[in-house]
């Protein structure tokens, strides 16, 4: 069964350092999402791609976060510099279509701890 792959699964970094997460969506899925889930809360959308284009990045803290999907397949989310408040689970999801009603498939996530 096709799955969304994410790496690393766990990352510990010191504040002010740079950190990057990678996501490989289900093959053929044009839509890719990055979410952040703080402990005790639900996932919050950071950025959404359709192929290589950003559809929505209104909740992405652009002063320190960046995301790219250069070839419209896999994607990288970067934080520079990391802050203590960035400690969270970062989830990637993909979908065959960006419209309402199309299921989003989530990866296992990357748990980030900033010390």
């Amino acid at each position, binding site marked *: 069964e096709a799955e*969304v792959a994410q790496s690393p699964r766990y990352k510990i970094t010191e504040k002010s350092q740079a950190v990057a997460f990678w996501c490989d969506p289900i093959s053929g899925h044009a839509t890719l999402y990055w979410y952040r889930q703080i402990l*005790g*809360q*639900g*996932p*919050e*959308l950071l950025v*959404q791609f*359709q192929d290589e284009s950003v*559809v*929505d990045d209104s909740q992405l803290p652009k002063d320190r976060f960046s995301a790219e999907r250069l070839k419209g397949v896999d994607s990288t989310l970067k934080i520079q510099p990391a802050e203590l408040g960035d400690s969270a689970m970062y*989830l990637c*999801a993909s*979908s065959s279509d*960006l*419209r*309402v*009603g*199309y*299921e*989003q*498939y*989530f*990866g*296992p*996530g990357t748990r980030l701890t900033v010390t």
Partner: protein
Amino acid sequence: DQQVKQNSPSLSVQEGRISILNCDYTNSMFDYFLWYKKYPAEGPTFLISISSIKDKNEDGRFTVFLNKSAKHLSLHIVPSQPGDSAVYFCAASQNTGFQKLVFGTGTRLLVSP
């Protein structure tokens, strides 16, 4: 501003009984609602959805009810099984041309044998 609320952080139910998980929303523009289930160390998995033109959707042991006037939806699991023990997230979206999910804070369900 929490647009999707799950006021019960946890719920305990005995195997075979009904589990009822509740969700409230404040944005009247939401017109599509979903439930996701999450096991530890895994990403959320889609469970069931409902469009605002319906008030009920059923899939096996899972039924979602939508009360638009009360801005409330609920997930019923009958009968509950120990394997249903997980965190359940309610999510909502409005039809702006693309799907943008807003999640609740989740309810941890524990089904005991």
